[in-house]
Every structure is written in C-alpha cells, then in structure tokens.
C-alpha cells in the first residue's frame, strides 16, 4: 500500500474523482428515476447515454471538428458546447422514450412478470450497443479539443481547471433543477404520486402512462448532459462506453439509495472519489475491486443505501 502516494496526491485525486463522480451521478439519475416509479432496472439506460456521446460528436463533426482540429476560441466554444448539449439531450431523450415504448410498454400492458422486463432491458441494451459497434466498426471516435484546460485556482498541489469546474457545476445545476421539478412542479407531483401508489394516483386522475414516459425522458435528458461531460473529460467514445460507466452509475444509484435523487448524487460523487483513492492507495489495478468491496460493506450496514428514501417519500 502506498500511503505517502495517496497523501501526496490527495488533492488532485479528490478533484479528478469529484469530476468523474459528477458524471456518474447524472448518469445514475436515470436508473434511480425509473426504479423509483416502476421498480424496474432499466439496463438499456447505458445505451441512452452512449447515443448521447455520439450525438454531440456527430454535431461537432458537422462543423468540421474532430480530434485533430485546433481548439476554437471565445464564444464559438460556448456555442459549440451548448449545441453539443442540445444534440446529446435530444438523442438521449428520444432513445429513452423509444426504449420505453418498444421494450417495456408492451410488456406492461400484458402484465408480464418482472423477469421479462429484466431480459428485455438487457436485450435492448446489447442490441443498441452492438449495432453501434458494427456501424462504427468498433473503432474509437476522438473528441475535438474544445476546452484548453487551464488552472482556475490552485490549493497546494491541487490544480482545479476550468473544465473540472464546468463539469461539476453543470452537474450540480442539473441536479438542482431536476430536484425542484420533481418536488415543486405539477408534473413532478404526478411522478411522486405514481411512485407512492400507482393505483391511488390513477384514481386521482394521474395519467400513469404519461408519467412513465416523462420519467424515462427526464432520465434521458440527464444522461445526455452526462454524455457531453464524458466526451469532454475522457476525450474518446466507443460502442461499449455506456456499458462500462453504466455499471458504475447503477452502483452509485444503489449506494446512495435507489429511487432517491439526492442519493444518486451522493453515491456518484462518493464512487468517483473512492475509485480514485483506491487507485492512489493500492494501484489503478485495484480501482474496481476496492470500490465494489466498499459498496458491499455499505449495503451490509445500510441495506437501503446511504439515503435510503424512495422517490415517492421524498420531501416535498
């Protein structure tokens, strides 16, 4: 074990861990939202994210940008990132709605057992991921260098860059807006009502089908934002990018308490940090092993996750 390495690099590992954690957290929201309402793990959510990572790259490609382009300047960067966000959000949102419509809704109408949903979820996930793999010949696709990383402030040896701040702030703002929406708006009340008791909600005149679509859409929007942040941070995407991060995001959702929005945020940030600290302390090869052992420990102590509240009982 390399304690001096961990202590020496503690600051930098913290900020890069938080950045990765912010991406995981936004991604995790999709799992948590759907689970909160439907008690269903939407494994195809990883491909909702995946298509987002491609959508913004394709859009930037229309402007002639690839991994070898020079960095654009000034407002062009802001505009490109905003457009990229729009493209990714649209692509991910549509994918989420599509998956719901094709893979889940017909099963729901036939009162299929939960196992059937699980299998169609995995099936939809693999089908989309493999199709992307075949279309892209399983090659990586590089991201244009939109942001030149510059230190905004330095604490000790912790250099906090403009890109890291952008990612973390964007994630927090998105979370905040979503949280407000669920807890304050009329549509949000509908979501909470269905999560609490679908039958009572239906009796009160809540349109369950529409609420479910809305939940998938919201998860998709968040995944789209996460996808752009992932592109900017990792610099490359490929057909299995969603699968890898999806497992981490799902883990984060469970760790924070699945069905709980704030739990997803906490779980995501925590997982990002834990993985980085594990890499620093034991070596990068231990990153997943250590993080997941900790997950088991957390669940042993708190079986419902850290914040263990369901979406329905979230404070209004």
């Amino acid at each position, binding site marked *: 074990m390399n304690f001096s390495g961990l202590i020496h*690099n503690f600051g930098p590992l913290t900020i*890069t861990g938080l950045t990765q954690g912010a991406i995981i957290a936004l991604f995790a929201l999709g799992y948590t939202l759907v689970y909160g309402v439907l008690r269903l793990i939407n494994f195809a959510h990883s491909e909702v994210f995946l298509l987002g990572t491609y959508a913004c790259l394709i859009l930037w490609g229309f402007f002639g940008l690839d991994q070898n382009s020079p960095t654009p300047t000034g407002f062009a960067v802001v505009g490109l990132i905003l457009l990229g966000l729009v493209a990714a959000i649209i692509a991910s949102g549509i994918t989420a709605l599509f998956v719901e419509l094709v893979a889940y809704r017909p099963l729901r109408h036939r009162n299929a057992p939960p196992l059937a949903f699980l299998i169609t979820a995995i099936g939809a996930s693999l089908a989309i991921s493999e199709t992307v793999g075949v279309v892209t010949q399983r090659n990586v696709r*590089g991201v244009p260098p939109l942001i030149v990383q510059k230190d905004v402030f330095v604490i000790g040896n912790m250099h906090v860059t403009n890109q890291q701040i952008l990612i973390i702030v964007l994630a927090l703002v998105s979370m905040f807006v979503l949280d407000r929406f669920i807890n304050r708006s009329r549509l949000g009340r509908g979501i909470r009502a269905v999560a609490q008791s679908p039958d009572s909600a239906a009796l009160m005149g809540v349109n369950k089908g529409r609420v479910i679509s809305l939940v998938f859409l919201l998860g998709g929007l968040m995944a789209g934002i996460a996808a752009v942040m992932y592109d900017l*941070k990792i610099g490359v995407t490929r057909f299995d990018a969603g699968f*890898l991060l999806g497992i981490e995001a799902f883990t984060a959702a469970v760790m924070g308490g699945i069905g709980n929005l704030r739990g997803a945020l906490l779980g995501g940030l925590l997982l990002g940090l834990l993985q980085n600290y*594990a890499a620093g302390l034991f070596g*990068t*090869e231990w990153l997943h092993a250590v993080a997941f052992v900790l997950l088991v420990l957390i669940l042993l102590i708190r079986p419902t996750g850290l914040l263990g509240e369901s979406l329905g009982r979230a404070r209004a």
Partner: protein
Amino acid sequence: MEEGSTLRQGLARAIGGVAVVGLIAGAAACNKDTGGGSSTASNSKCGYELAFFGALTGPAANLGVNIEQGFELAVIQYNEKNGANCVVVKKFDSQGDPAVAPGVARNLVADKKIIGVVGPPFSGENEAADPIFEAAGVPMISPSATRTTLSANGWKVFHRALGNDNSQGPAAAQYIKEVMKPTKVFVGDDQSAYGAGLADIVKKSLGSLVVGTDKTEADGKQTDFSGLVQKVVGSGATVMFYGGYYANGGLIRKQLTAAGWKGTLVGGDGMKDPGLSKAAGIASAKGTIVTCPCAPPEQAGGTFFADYKAKWNVPAGTYSDAAFDSANIFLQGIDQGNTAIDKMNTYLSTVTYKGVANTYKFTDKGELDPQYIRVFAYKFDDSGDAKVDQEIKKS
C-alpha cells in the same frame, strides 16, 4: 422402421449421386483453372490450405488485418505462378480475444487440408490457442507475438518470426537511457500477458531511473485514467513507458496531455498503430516513441511495398512484411514437397529463409535465431502514424 430405413437409403443414394456429380464438376473446373495457369503445375503443389488466425474484428483488429493482408498477398503471388486457387487461404477470426481463440482454433484444426498457420498475432491468444495447434500437430508461425514464455512450453509447432520481449524490453530501455536520457521514468502496464511482461523487463533494465509504477485495466475495461495520470504528473517523470496496446495508449496519452503533462510516452509494438493518434489526436500523439522488433515495411526488399499498396490500396502496416515472409516460408515448404503437417514442421526447424523484411532461422524452441533479431524505434509524427526513427543498437 422398415419403411423409414428404405427411405433413408433412398435419400442417401440421392445425396451420394449429387456428391459424385459435384466432384466431377469440381474436378473439371479445377482442370480448367490450372490449364489457364502454368503448365508445370502438376498439382503436387496444389490443393493445400494455409490459414490466417487472428483478429479481423474487435478492438485490436488493425494489427490482425495488417498481418492477414501480408499473408494473403504472398499466397496470391504464389497462385499467380502455380494456378488460381492452387493454395487456398482460410481465415479464422479470433477477435484477438483469448476467450474466443480456443473455439476458433478447434475449428481450424478440424480442417485437415490446412498445413500451416500464420498467427496468432497476440501473446494472450497464443497461450489459449497454441496447445490446440500442438495437439493437432499443425505448424504455425506467429509474425508478432512477443511474450517470452510462449517458447518455454515445449510446443513443437510454435515458431515466431521476430525477437521476443527479452529483446524488445531491453532495447526500449536502451533507447530511453541512451537517446532520451531522462532522470525520472514512470512505468505502467495493462496487466495483459504482453504488457506486464514487457513492462517488467523495462523496469528491471532501467533500475533506479524508475520513480513510480502503476497498472491499469485492459483495453476496453477502463476509460478514466485520472488515478494513473495523477501519479505520473506527481512523480515528476519526463518519460512514461506503458506496456499495453494502442487503444489504452491513446486514451492515456490524451488524458496526460489534458492534465498538462509535457513528457514523452514510450511503448512497445502493441502501441505502434495509427489507432493511437485516432484516440489521442495527432497533436497529442506526436512524439510518442514505440519500439518494435520489426523492420519498417517501407524498407522491405523487392517490390513488396508497392505490391501491397497495389493490392490492398493501403500502405503495408506493422508486421505486414513479416506475415508475408511467414507465408512464403510455408509456400517454399510446399514447393519442396513438404505437404504433410509433420514434414512441414521438420522443414521449419531446418530452413534458413531470406525474406523481404529479414532472414529467418528458428531455434529448437521456435525462437528466431538471435543473430537475425532487429529492434527499431518509431516516432509518431504529423501524419498520425509512427515513422521509423532509428534501429536500436544492441547493448
């Protein structure tokens, strides 16, 4: 029962009849084909198959395709002299995956017409597939697998057309020490048979120059390298050696650059692929050094480089020339009448073959004779590909 069995007999006769007709038609077609070719083709040289075994799809397919095309070009040229379809090319796609390789290898050895295999390219799939080739007695030449222990298993059918990591590792260390002259080096690897083996040798050869080490997940299993990047930056190293393949190499280079690291990434032949700059971006990949126990294909002898470009419409890549030579070693063997797998294997243990990339002679373990081993350093430039920098002198 009675009725059923007569029915079956009838069916069997019918199928047999069709098969006989097919055979005659096939023979006629074959005659026509050879008639169009050289008249000396008495067919004692024909009717055999050579196989390519390696990744044609999957994340590391670029290298497999380089090798397959070099191999196939040799057979095409042979058939131009000896008649169309004289020697038939069979392709077996392992995806470069040790988990997939054994099943594919079993399919290969089931085809009894195959008397030689060019491949497998990667060390991991060699470990998985070679025992199956050994059991079946099918001789093989890998043009690119470099893990040292591959030759220590007592496999009689194993041969490789290049030096192993014991030659590449020290040469990489030699280049770092003598040409780059850094005071601090960071060494990482991807925990693969190939990457870890290579990194361990480099670590040992560099000794006290190594200020830090780390291990990553394999290709496709990790995309965020924040932990590694921080260790490299924090160590103050100006050179990082990474034992691994180009997919991870490109990502690591990109994330090191993004974190402001100005040092140079050095790797083995697994990173010698334009895929590295595709992930990292040309500007970021530029200057990256890769070693390779392979001569630059553009310096290959004869008309190989032009022929390859004419046939495949892309320039010959890493190991294309060695694969071409490997195939020609087999083809010369067929020419000399070694048309059974055991005779072919005996021939491989004695032959000295001068090819377009190198001269080849195999030791009793199937290693390339040390006097013919050459290691080159390549550098990524503005084209996004690695161009030859210099041949690394033997220390």
